[in-house]
């Protein structure tokens, strides 16, 4: 028997979807009655592949788990190995790691800004922001050799030291970004229509947010201060001065403003890191990567990525290869159980902006 509601496929081949996934919407009129997330279009079986590779061989593939922002994955795996082994990391490497993480957060926010406003029909914003994001990618290219995939952070430190004059170039880029932010404010965040389209849309209830396991900007957009960087400071975050912005409201606009303010914080953090960065080696003596036995043990490590808390649960059985690495991306909850619930009752027009504002990133759901 034919169902009453219309089935609307949002994805996988759809301009409104973030990445390659599908949200099957049952709509009555333009209101979503039921939403079902379907994932698996990007399943590459990373966790299985890591079991086939040595710990160090896993680094090149973990960065592919989340394309817009690969560094938290490398950071997580590196810290998981370090925690199991009890390995010390040189101070300078920690600073460089934080710099890379914050740069990648900034890049991810630029990309998000494009997606968010592009989904709302403001096509100038993605053109600007994705273009500006390229300046960060240039920095990464200089630092790591790769625009997108860096494979830079690894167990024991980072792969290589900063090139000459890199610090100045980073500072220059940061200055440029700071000068651009007011323009983005004018174009996006202060735009009357943008506000009209985002305020009161896709609201997450504060109580529910805690119980559903919402993390990152969506949670901070509910007014709850929850950030791994202050809760469980890793690397040198406890030595930096920054605040974690929270905005009340729980709607798309609140989440957008959280990210907008975090961009300022990231810029200031990068400046602080460059300012305080000590000298010294960037990695300690490590074993031969192909012969690197990690002792038996397990570790759950967390990093705050642009979309929220990124957790890795790594188990080693004392052999060359990981026994199990479980990747828990923030989108795992945001993209499936949370999305399916808050889309009910939403307008078709708002589905794509809601997804963008939650930072749903399918590759980290299905790995």
């Amino acid at each position: 028997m034919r169902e009453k509601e219309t089935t609307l496929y949002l994805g996988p081949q759809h301009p409104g979807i973030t990445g390659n996934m599908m949200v099957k919407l049952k709509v009555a009129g333009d209101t979503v009655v039921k939403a079902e997330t379907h994932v698996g279009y990007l399943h590459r079986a990373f966790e299985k592949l890591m079991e086939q590779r040595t710990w160090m061989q896993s680094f090149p593939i973990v960065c592919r788990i989340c394309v817009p922002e690969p560094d938290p994955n490398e950071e997580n795996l590196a810290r998981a190995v370090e925690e199991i082994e009890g390995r010390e990391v040189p101070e300078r490497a920690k600073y460089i790691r934080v710099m890379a993480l914050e740069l990648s957060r900034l890049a991810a926010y630029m990309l998000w800004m494009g997606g968010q406003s592009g989904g709302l029909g403001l096509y100038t914003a993605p053109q600007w922001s994705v273009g500006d994001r390229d300046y960060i990618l240039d920095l990464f290219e200089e630092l790591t050799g790769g625009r997108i995939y860096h494979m830079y952070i690894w167990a024991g430190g980072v792969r290589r030291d900063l090139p000459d004059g890199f610090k100045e170039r980073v500072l220059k880029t940061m200055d440029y970004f700071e000068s651009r932010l007011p323009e983005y404010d004018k174009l996006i965040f202060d735009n009357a229509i943008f506000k009209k389209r985002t305020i009161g849309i896709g609201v997450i209830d504060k109580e529910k947010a805690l119980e559903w396991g919402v993390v990152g900007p969506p949670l901070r957009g509910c007014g709850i201060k929850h950030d791994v960087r202050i809760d469980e400071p890793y690397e040198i975050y406890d030595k930096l001065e920054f605040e974690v912005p929270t905005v009340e409201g729980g709607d798309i606009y609140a989440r957008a403003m959280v990210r907008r303010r975090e961009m300022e914080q990231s810029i200031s953090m990068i400046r602080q890191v460059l300012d305080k960065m000590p000298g010294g080696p960037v990695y300690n003596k490590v074993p031969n990567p192909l012969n690197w036995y990690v002792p038996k043990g397990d570790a759950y490590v967390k990093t705050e990525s642009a979309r929220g808390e990124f957790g890795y649960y790594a188990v080693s059985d004392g052999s060359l290869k990981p026994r199990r690495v479980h990747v828990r991306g923030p989108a795992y909850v945001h993209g499936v159980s949370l999305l399916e619930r808050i889309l009910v009752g939403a307008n078709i027009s708002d589905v794509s902006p809601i997804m963008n504002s939650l930072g749903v990133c399918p590759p980290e759901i299905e790995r």
Partner: protein
Amino acid sequence: MEELKIEKEIAEEISKTFHSAEVTVKREKRVVVKLRDDLITPFLSYAKNNMNFIHLAHISCVDWLEDNKFELIYSLLNYDNKVMILAKTYIDRENPEFVSHTNYWDQAETYEREMREMYGINFKGNKRLTEFILEDWQGIPPMRRDFDTVKFSQDTFYNRPGRENAQDVRTTVTKKSGEEIPEIGKDYTVRNL
């Protein structure tokens, strides 16, 4: 030892309530609890309702093929003191079945769906154990240790041979450091044939 005060208090409370639980404070903000499989549900319920561990961060599974066991790990987080509990248990690998915790946490549904698909664990009480990531999968659940992904890939997908003059990275690297090619490296050279 002063800084692990909260963690120790939590550990004490758990061991007081669950006598058979094996509680260790692993490091700052990490408490590991090993439990019998039938105690997991009471424990989660207790932690959620009485100890304010309301955030279920993830549910994970490790396949211990040698011991014929699956290890299930439930990670809970307390928003107030930001301590994380990892509750672990072992279940039988032959006929894996466990209780669903969807009535405690909505997002548990997703984790359980994935584990059913990847490990074949049947979570009783979960109403939506439908296909999640894979589509029309016919073999054994792929994340089990006895599933050979390399063989599967070679059988199913066309493997394009590599270039003849391609240099093996492993050989180059080991030559440089003067060590022998380890077993793992030899495995991988198979592919260049």
